């Protein structure tokens, strides 16, 4: 008799069969089974067959009128009463759900941003074996090793021939400011395009390392010169339709040099599929690397000292190869080419670290440090915590109103655990509504956040199931965090006490916890306010600190020269100066502060054949440069007009770094640049101005004349009628240089762009601080309104005994002011510590003064008082007769 009927048919029977029949049918079938046990296999088959024969409408349980267990009915009832409760307490529900929705929306937003940021270049199947080659070098004035993404021109070829273990070697050069001409059958230009970025020179090996699929054509033609792959978007922009682009020719005028090197005719031999947003290779055109003047230099150079900023190299390692091993071999190999002046070594970096390498940077100029990602997570957690705290505060405060209901439920036999489940379900209901709202808010707000952070983060639930998982996780986590404590507190009520209206029991404890939570909220809010004030002040310093030169109303217009155009520069200047609204015109290679476009050169001093080991920023500029930008001389005189290198101007920093005491000491001493190719005397010393962004101190600087090096005109305008002046400038420009796309940029905007990251951070902090304070006040408002309702009798008695309205408002405000003051005392050192650490990164930084903290604390108190004042004043003005009459 140990034989049992087969398990699955039995379970199936129990599942489908009507409850009132299952006993009989199962019993009969089992009995038959046991009678047939003399052949067990047959009995089992028979049993299954019998079960299947019973699977007919007469025995299947009804779908609609499922006979329910009592517990499911109970849970349905919980949902029903929870929903009714929300509808009845609309204010409470509104405050709670809004708070949670905003908190969750911030969290979701940060989640999608972080998810996007961490997805960069993760879609390449061979990403774990792909590396970037970096140059490791040491500057005389810096202690640490520095890494540059540019590598010497001969390195890719050397890697390929000397390191056969490396599977693929792809040199990459990212060009900029290229002009592309679409030509017709006769070779005449039909359309002109300027691509600021996105033109990459490389070999087919690049596509063996990285996964950018083709729509048409193949990668192989890239090994020959003068071929180009277009992305679908670029092809559509140039030819209207990407299918038409295949096999067509375009002309390239590659940018990035001062001299014009003519055009190259490129054959379109492939169309790349749309480049995803989450890659640091934002390709638009991919040109074979030997192409054009610069390509020839790159592929044929043998000098290990030659490089250009955007020339780098990517390699693919064989599976299982060790990066450390190759790094050792590389540094040994690099020694062969080292000279006393150039001790560069080479190192490889995994591709999946590039997006987080804020020091070295990458082609998209979009990097994010792990530190910033962590800060974002932290802020998300804090904002969610504030929202949860609101919820806990309001739920426990509201407990008084629910005490009768709880009492009745307990009297009718609810156990504590059942009541806890009820309150958890109530929380779950609100959290679910909040999560749905939050998804909506995220969807609406994401475009503006994208614009602010210059990202293209998608929010697509269908494509990205991780978002759904995240929202589910948030729902569960918030329900647990926010629902657990109130459910414990509420279910603890003693029914006898609450039904006799003695609900004072146990609430004093709740009040102290609520106070603690309010303090916690305001610590976060005030720390964020203080942090934001400091960042904003620091930004203010960046924008308004005197730079030491004039940046207002100066427009720069880039151009490229050849011998023909050099001859026209004087004419251009004359024309521009005769225009209404133009005050001065100066030709130069760089603006006074130019950051990444600056060139740094070593130099020799006082006819020495050896270089000093000091690197100085070198700018080429005409005699108008100093007056145009209002640079100040501390010794000597300005440059004289010349088309060759004839005289040098230096700055005080350079004088100091040479160890000279007085600026006058350097006058008439010689300086040699480029291995003494250019040697000339120093004629003047400039007062130090900020020739680098405020992240750094002023650097040594050399300015000299050389007409072949000029690539931009700096035009100083009068501040009236700028638009019409620029129109005439444009006309003159296009007359003089008809084959250029005219574009211009205001100097102050350019300087602002150096602080883009700080600006974005400041904006983010403003938003976060705003949300934190809003959420905290939402909670405060709810708390104050419940306090007012609870103490209505107390207020009535006080008024009867002669208290004035002001006394009552004071009574309400006092407690909150004390709480916020406690929060302020705790928030101040935390905020000071973090902001102090943040400021250490800047050479020019504000002093953290006391008034910032005072302002932050005061702002919090004022906002909080404004929030509760409405409730306090209403309570104070209420007629005591009304509140005391009812009992």
């Amino acid at each position: 008799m140990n034989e049992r009927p087969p398990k699955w048919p039995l379970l199936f029977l129990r599942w489908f069969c009507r409850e009132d029949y299952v006993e009989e049918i199962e019993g009969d079938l089992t009995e038959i089974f046991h009678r047939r046990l003399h052949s067990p296999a047959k009995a089992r088959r028979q049993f299954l067959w019998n079960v299947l024969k019973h699977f007919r409408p007469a025995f299947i349980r009804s779908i609609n009128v499922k006979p329910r267990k009592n517990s499911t009915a109970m849970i349905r009832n919980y949902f029903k009463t929870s929903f009714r409760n929300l509808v009845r307490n609309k204010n409470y529900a509104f405050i709670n759900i809004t708070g949670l929705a905003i908190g969750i929306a911030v969290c979701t937003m940060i989640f999608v941003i972080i998810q996007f940021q961490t997805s960069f270049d993760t879609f390449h199947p061979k990403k774990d074996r792909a590396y970037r080659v970096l140059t490791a070098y040491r500057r005389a004035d810096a202690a640490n090793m520095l890494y540059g993404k540019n590598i010497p021109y001969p390195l890719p070829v050397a890697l390929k021939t000397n390191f056969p273990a490396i599977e693929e070697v792809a040199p990459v050069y990212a060009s900029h400011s290229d002009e592309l001409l679409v030509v017709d059958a006769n070779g005449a230009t039909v359309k002109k395009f300027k691509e600021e970025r996105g033109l990459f020179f490389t070999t087919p090996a690049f596509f063996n390392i990285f996964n950018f699929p083709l729509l048409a054509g193949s990668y192989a033609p890239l090994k020959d010169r003068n071929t180009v792959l277009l992305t679908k978007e670029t092809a559509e922009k140039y030819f209207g339709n990407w299918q038409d682009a295949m096999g067509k020719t375009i002309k390239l005028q590659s940018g990035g040099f001062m001299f014009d090197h003519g055009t190259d005719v490129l054959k379109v031999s492939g169309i790349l599929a749309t480049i995803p947003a989450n890659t640091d290779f934002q390709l638009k055109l991919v040109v074979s690397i030997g192409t054009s003047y610069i390509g020839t230099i790159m592929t044929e150079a043998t000098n290990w000292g030659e490089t250009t900023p955007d020339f780098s190299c990517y390699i693919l390692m064989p599976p299982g190869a060790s990066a450390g091993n190759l790094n050792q071999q590389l540094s040994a190999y690099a020694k062969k080419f080292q000279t006393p002046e150039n001790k560069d070594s080479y190192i490889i970096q995994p591709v999946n670290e590039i997006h987080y390498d804020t020091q070295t940077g990458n082609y998209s100029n979009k990097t994010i440090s792990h530190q910033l990602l962590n800060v974002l997570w932290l802020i998300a957690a804090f904002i969610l915590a504030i929202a949860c705290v609101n919820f806990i505060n309001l739920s426990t405060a509201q407990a008084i109103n629910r005490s009768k209901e709880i009492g009745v439920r307990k009297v009718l036999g609810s156990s504590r655990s059942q009541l806890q489940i009820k309150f958890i379900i109530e929380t779950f209901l609100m959290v679910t509504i909040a999560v749905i709202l939050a998804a909506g808010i995220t969807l609406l707000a994401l475009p503006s956040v994208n614009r602010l952070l210059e990202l293209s983060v998608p929010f697509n639930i269908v494509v990205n199931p991780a978002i759904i998982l995240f929202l589910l996780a948030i729902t569960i986590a918030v329900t647990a965090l926010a629902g657990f404590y109130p459910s414990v507190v509420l279910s603890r009520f003693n029914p006898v006490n609450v039904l006799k209206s003695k609900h004072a029991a146990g609430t004093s404890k709740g009040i102290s916890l609520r106070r603690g939570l309010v303090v916690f909220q305001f610590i976060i809010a005030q720390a964020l306010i203080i942090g934001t004030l400091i960042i904003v002040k620091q930004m203010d310093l960046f924008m308004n600190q005197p730079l030491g030169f004039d940046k207002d109303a100066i427009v720069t217009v880039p151009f490229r020269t050849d011998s023909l155009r050099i001859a026209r520069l004087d004419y251009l200047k004359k024309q521009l100066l005769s225009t209404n609204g133009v005050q001065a015109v100066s030709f130069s290679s760089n603006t006074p502060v130019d950051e990444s476009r600056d060139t740094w050169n070593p130099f020799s001093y006082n006819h020495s054949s050896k270089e000093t080991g000091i690197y100085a920023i070198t700018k080429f500029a005409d005699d108008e440069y100093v007056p145009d930008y209002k640079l100040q001389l501390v010794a000597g005189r300005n440059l004289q007009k010349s088309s060759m290198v004839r005289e040098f101007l230096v700055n005080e920093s350079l004088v100091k770094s040479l160890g000279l005491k007085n600026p006058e000491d350097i006058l008439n001493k010689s300086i040699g640049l480029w291995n003494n190719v250019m040697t000339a005397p120093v004629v003047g010393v400039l007062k130090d101005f900020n020739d680098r962004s405020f992240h750094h101190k002023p650097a040594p600087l050399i300015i000299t004349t050389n007409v072949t090096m000029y690539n931009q005109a700096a035009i100083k305008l009068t501040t009236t009628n700028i638009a019409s002046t620029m129109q005439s400038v444009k006309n003159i420009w296009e007359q003089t240089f008809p084959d250029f796309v005219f574009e211009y940029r205001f100097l102050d905007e350019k300087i602002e762009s150096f602080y883009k990251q700080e600006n974005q951070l400041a904006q983010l902090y403003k938003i976060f601080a705003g949300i934190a304070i809003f959420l905290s006040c939402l909670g405060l408002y709810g708390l104050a309104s419940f306090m007012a309702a609870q103490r209505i009798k107390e207020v009535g008695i006080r008024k009867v005994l002669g208290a004035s309205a002001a006394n009552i408002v004071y009574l309400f405000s006092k407690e909150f002011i004390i709480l916020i003051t406690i929060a302020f005392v705790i928030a101040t050192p935390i905020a000071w510590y973090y902001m102090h650490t943040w400021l250490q990164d800047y050479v020019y930084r504000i002093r953290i003064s006391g008034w910032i903290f005072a302002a932050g604390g005061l702002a919090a108190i004022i906002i909080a008082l404004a929030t509760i004042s409405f409730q306090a004043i209403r309570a104070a003005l209420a007629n005591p007769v009304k509140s005391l009459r009812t009992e």
Partner: protein
Amino acid sequence: MQYHSLGEFEELVLLAVAALHDEAYGVSIQESLAGKLSKNINISAIHVALKRMEDKGFVKSRFGGITEERGGRRKKYYVITAAGKHMLDSQYELRTALYKMIPKISFGR
């Protein structure tokens, strides 16, 4: 009162219930019918017939005791009701009346 008919198989089951008196439950009915008809009848058919007749009010049921071989499930015993007996009687009468009307000559030797 609604008129209820009785199908052929239902009639057989009802007869078995009546015959087994107080010992009629699914398996015993199946066995007695299978023995008499000398053909295999699926238990589900008997369950269907019993449920229908219970709805029509020809049989009523009660639960019996638990036996080991039924895996802890109780037997459901069926007994014929007065309406059921009446139905069987009228069915029997109808048949005999009709039977008697068969002219004897037709089958004469």
